[in-house]
């Protein structure tokens, strides 16, 4: 690893100031589980590493059934799945953070960092998109909010401007009859990276017999996470039968434009989109049947 300077500001404005001043020479560090590896392997170069874990706004989270979840950008994964209310309200997110690395990684890695790293195969991003999450950014030019669905712009690329950082994520309140799930396909059973990932969210109607609304998001099938809008729209007003979920899976395949690489051939990945979309929809529907905030 090449030598670098390290700063750990305790104030958001101070961090923005440092970051803006250093420009491209600086990089932010939350859990560090991606950044440190990238620096060590020469995939990223930085003269200054700014640790954001000591900034209260980034390291805290609040949840209330009425207002939803506000998740500071540097909150580590384990805080989410260990919190029963959050895990029950946003099971897709809990599914995702439970499988990012092993326990050691989960005690450091943050959802915010997973989003900013903007890997096409990131596990938490399809879950966040399916759950309708919004990213809150702050920079030299002030603050703004961007839907997570629009946050990533390419492999490792995102909408953050120079000097701008992710402060928090917000998730809308989870209503009765809602449910979600995230699954990925990996050749092993742990410690692996998604060949394809799928996050699904459904809101059942009051009868709990029909799907009132749905969102489906996919990982590792294009340069950025993809939303399967047509598949989700197809489900609206329909019963969650095996046939309908299968059809949604088939429709979801249409947004997949995967590459062939060491993680799997393109045709296999496209096939998996159908399988995982159906499986996550089924899991989301089952959870929705019993969920009460």
């Amino acid at each position, binding site marked *: 690893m090449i030598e670098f300077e390290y700063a750990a500001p305790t104030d958001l404005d101070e961090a923005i100031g440092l970051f803006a001043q250093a420009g491209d020479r600086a990089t932010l560090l939350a859990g560090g589980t991606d950044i440190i590896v990238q620096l060590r*392997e020469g995939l990223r170069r930085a003269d200054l590493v700014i640790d954001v874990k000591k900034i209260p706004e980034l390291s805290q989270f609040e949840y209330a059934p009425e207002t939803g979840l506000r998740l500071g950008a540097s909150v580590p994964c384990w805080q989410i799945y260990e919190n029963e209310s959050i895990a029950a309200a946003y099971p897709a997110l809990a599914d995702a953070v439970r499988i990012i690395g092993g326990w050691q990684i989960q005690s450091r890695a943050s959802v915010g960092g997973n989003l900013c790293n903007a890997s096409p195969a990131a596990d938490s991003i399809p879950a966040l998109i399916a759950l309708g999450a919004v990213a809150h950014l702050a920079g030299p030019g002030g603050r703004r909010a961007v839907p997570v669905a629009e946050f990533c712009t390419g492999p490792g690329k995102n909408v953050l401007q120079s000097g701008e950082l992710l402060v928090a994520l917000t998730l809308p309140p989870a209503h009765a009859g809602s449910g979600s799930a995230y699954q990925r396909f990996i*050749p*092993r059973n*742990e410690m*692996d*990276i998604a060949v394809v990932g799928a996050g699904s969210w459904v809101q059942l109607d009051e009868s709990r017999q029909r799907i009132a609304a749905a969102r489906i998001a996919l990982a590792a099938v294009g340069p950025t996470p993809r939303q399967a809008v047509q598949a989700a729209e197809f489900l609206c007003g329909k019963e969650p039968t095996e046939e309908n979920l299968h059809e949604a899976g088939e429709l979801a395949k249409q947004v997949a434009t995967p590459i062939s690489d060491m993680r799997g051939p393109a045709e*296999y990945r496209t*096939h998996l989109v159908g399988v995982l979309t159906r499986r996550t929809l089924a899991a989301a529907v089952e959870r929705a049947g019993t969920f009460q905030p």
Partner: protein
Amino acid sequence: MSTEVPSRSTPDASDLSPSSAAETKKYKVIGTRPIRHDGADKVTGKARYTSDVLLPNMAYGALVRSPYAHARIVSIDTSEAEAMPGVLATMTSADLPDPWDKVENLGEGCINYAHLSGNVLARGKALYKGHAVAAVCATNAHLAEEAAAKIKVEYEPLPAVTWVLDAMKEDAPLLHDNLVTQALGEESARPSNIGAHIHFEQGDLEAGWAAADVIVEREFKTSSIHQGYIEPHVSIAMWNEDGRLKIWTGTQGSFVVRQQMAELLKIPVSQVLVIPCEIGGGFGGKIAVYEQPVAAVLSRKCGRPVKIAMRRDEVFEATGPTPGSYMRVKLGATKDGKLTAGEAWLAYDAGAFPGGVIGPGCMCVFSCYDIPNAVVDGYDVVANKPKVQAYRAPGSTHAAFACESVIDELALELKIDPLDFRLKNAVQEGSRRVDGPVYPRIGLIETLEAVRDSQHWNSPLEGPNRGRGIACGFWFNAGLQSSVTAAVNPDGTVSMSEGSTDIGGTRASIAMQLAETLGIAATDVQPQVVDTDSIGYTDVTGGSRVTFATGLAAYQAGLDIQKQMVRRAAELWECDVDQVTVEDGVYRYGDAALSFKELAVKLNNAGDPIVGRASVSPQVSTNAFGAHIVDVEVDPETGKVTILRYTAVQDAGKAIHPSYVEGQMQGGAAQGIGWALNEEYFYDDEGVMRNASFLDYRIPTAFDLPMIETIIVEVPNPDHPYGVRGVGEVPIVPPPAALAIAIHRATGCRMHELPMSPPHVWRAMQDR
């Protein structure tokens, strides 16, 4: 034809019987499970690995590696790196002595020093992505890495070839301008990438086919696989002003490192001291030197000790994979299930330099079966990949995948139970191998019978998408040279020194044999792996030989001690030597009796200290056979294979420390499962490995494996006083074939290519 079983005595054994060598005798130490002598250090983190060694004023080296799979090196400019503050020295292959084209047999296969030197640092051409081209050392590791990036290498990229059949084509890019095919006396006329052609024949093949009622022929492919040891290669070299070179390294053979250093640097062996540190896995990949000569030359240049530690990507891209292979196997049998003929055509890549593992591949392909008429052809083929090294039963796993798959298919065609079919044709004492020799007493039949009688084999396997497979495997196992010395302490314990670096619990298994011989407790022997100045020559920890051969040396050192103790006891009791008897470590004369410990305490202050020594070179294979049973479930939508149950059965001869025998069987099975299901070098069109990390090079984790059950079969090896056969290698051999067969039962698909990763199994299911 002689089928005489070799006598029980070993070539160098003295006439003294061990205190408990008779087969009927109950052992006191052997077969028990004492806590290993190095256990406390290992579990508390105090064991010293090379990375833990810090020397005063130590410098750190880094290597510059080729970004191309094949390229002419036009120029190397180190000036910018050398100008950096803190940079101490740089080097290229020009700093290594001109290599001699000398082939030497180092006990475990041969080494051509010209090739070895050219692999350490490229000469003229880079032959694979990651091939070391230059090196630098600096006052710290970060600076060294930065300086390495400042060494300017100009390359002229050349076309590369990584797949073995492509490399054999007439128009393939040539790696070496002067490589001709060696085929025992018949050299090819013009250069090619084929380094050797091996050919075996037994009987009359055409008559064999004519006698067959059913013939099955299939082709198979496998990818390159890495040994996947957890500890990357790390070494420290300190070349003193007095000319003495000291090397600290994690290696399978400290004496073999000494020999290679002496040859590559053209210095006398006596000028090299190798201090073996604890080793975090080797599996065959830590025998050849890589970074050690580089650290040595940098040390001589800068006058400081130099440490070089590889990163994981360097380990994958530049150290020993086992080959990618193409194989064709054809077998014929009669209606009543007797094999009549076999033919195998095997091509294994050797990596960038000739001399891979095709020889043992050819010798192993039919090694489990009595096939009267057989022909085997094998090709050693260079390709733009890291130089192939040994990996646990090198060459045998590939061959077993092919042969066992065809055996299974043939059995099904004949409507004979595949286990019965194997039992009917299994080799036994007197069977002739395709390469010629006749087996002595071996335990394949007993191993297969243990499968037949096992709870696993007799348990039902129900449910859709599930299947059960079995396969067997063979590995020779080596003897080679070993030395042991042992000193009796005043408290009746024994300090034992040996030269076999301990990869798999061999300190314990060697110490236990000494303890058994002397009639003392395992804890009363303190074993130590010592450096090359402190013990007689000892070959590598490889070939599953250490518990067998170094154990034999410990046994003989024990007899040496016992002989001295008897003589001294006779002096003590003022009787003749032959009036003293020894049984179970108790020395007797008339009514007088003293235990080993009591006698040792008495002798301590009277006369010469007692030191036993032995050096051995048993010239035998110990012939290990294993058979594995596996139950799988295949996800019909994704092709992912889940292992439901796994049992490894193996003839260990005699299990000295059963826990470590089981550990070897489980470890070998785990590595074989990884090879079968997910591991592969994934190359792009430019010959670049795209998955040089443990993230995308998928060895199995604990989540991917069930508890691997073990059944130890004990058919004593007639060439060892306690009956030991080697155990370490053969358990990697059966898994790919066993899994392929289980997947066939679960899906109806025959898998002919490794790895049987989810996309490949899914593809096969689509095509069915």
